[in-house]
């Protein structure tokens, strides 16, 4: 039962069931024999080569050569500057090219408290970034408002933009930020770290911020999906044996 839930989160190239695996094996055998026809061949190539190898290669390239867009707002910015410094070297992960322009940046390190005057500016900059883009919310203030529960600070950047990694701390040590960055890299490579959910058997409890839910009003279908996730009936028997 538990393996099925984890498989459901697994990236695309893993077969979702034993039957699928068997089908793939047969197709590979036919390919080697020269028996696969055009459509089958194309489908096989897409699945096994493009979807897996090329995507893996792309993700590997993306993860190891990220350009951070530095969004130094407050105190966390100073600690973010120090990950470029020689002691906590982010260059060993390939991300030392801090790009000020959002058009040239891959991910946004939102470091510091987001005030209500700055929030629209941050959102506009995030929108100006090109896909694929990620966001690390560094520090307590941008993750949840931090210690400033008042009129002037937005209580968490994920109120107005999707955030991938939250790094706690006030300010987080540079090592903590690098750890968060490593987690982001693993997420890009295709094996996101479930974190505490793996230890507490809570695999289906994630809340994803979906763009559609915010903008086009897919709230009803999101609620439906959540209801199903919370009290779902057991998956049908052909989804796979343990």
């Amino acid at each position, binding site marked *: 039962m538990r393996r099925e839930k984890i498989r459901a989160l697994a990236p695309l190239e893993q077969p979702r069931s034993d039957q699928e695996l068997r089908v793939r094996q047969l197709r590979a055998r036919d390919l080697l024999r020269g028996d696969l026809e055009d459509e089958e061949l194309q489908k096989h190539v897409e699945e096994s080569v493009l979807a897996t190898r090329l995507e893996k290669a792309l993700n590997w390239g993306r993860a190891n050569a990220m350009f951070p867009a530095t969004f130094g707002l407050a105190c966390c910015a100073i600690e973010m500057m120090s990950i470029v410094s020689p002691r906590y070297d982010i260059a060993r992960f390939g991300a030392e090219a801090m790009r000020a322009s959002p058009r040239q940046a891959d991910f946004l390190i939102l470091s510091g408290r987001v005030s*209500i*005057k700055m929030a629209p500016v941050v959102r506009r900059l995030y929108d100006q970034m090109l896909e694929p883009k990620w966001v690390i919310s560094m520090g307590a203030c941008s993750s949840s*408002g931090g210690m*400033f*529960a*008042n*009129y*002037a*600070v937005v*209580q968490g950047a994920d*109120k107005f933009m999707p955030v991938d990694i939250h790094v706690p701390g006030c300010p987080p040590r540079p090592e903590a930020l690098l750890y968060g960055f490593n987690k982001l890299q693993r997420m890009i490579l295709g094996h996101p770290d479930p974190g505490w959910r793996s230890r507490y058997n809570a695999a289906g409890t994630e809340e994803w911020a979906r763009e559609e*839910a915010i903008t086009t009003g897919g*709230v009803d279908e*999101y*609620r439906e999906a959540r209801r199903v996730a919370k009290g779902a009936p057991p998956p049908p028997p052909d989804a796979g044996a343990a």
Partner: protein
Amino acid sequence: MPDAPGLELIAGELNDAHPGSVLETYHDRGQACLIVDPGQVLAVLGWLRDTSGQEYWFLASLHAADYLPAEPRFGVHYELLNMARVERLRVRAALDDPGGDDLPELDSCVDMFPTAEFQEREAYDFFGIVFRGHPDLRRILMPEEYVGWPQRRDFPVGGEPVIFTHNEREVPRWYE
């Protein structure tokens, strides 16, 4: 800091030069403060700056405070500094709250002390104190179209309730 008798002397001379300007003096914890009538605050500052023997020509800080239950409600503080003798003197203009939609008004001292420009804007932004004669009185730290005077005592601190397990079912989430 001028000591207590020195402060009384200054207050006496000020009242001679500009009658009715000094309402009270206050010497507490080693600091000297003159509480002045807001209509004459420019005269007081000018006297303190220009009179030989006083020469408080450096305005270290201009800030306001809301003493809400107490009357008069607002106090605009001018922290003056005499660099030659290293003496600080605080001048407090005691402003009343006119009530309703009106804002308390005071004359701007930007011509005398150009450093007051940003600081008066900050007092306006946070307390709604209008400085007559200020070249560019608009909000400085809050967004331009913000409504409300945040630092007044009757303005709420704001923020949102923190979600704990005991209130997670009552507090509405962003998707609700």
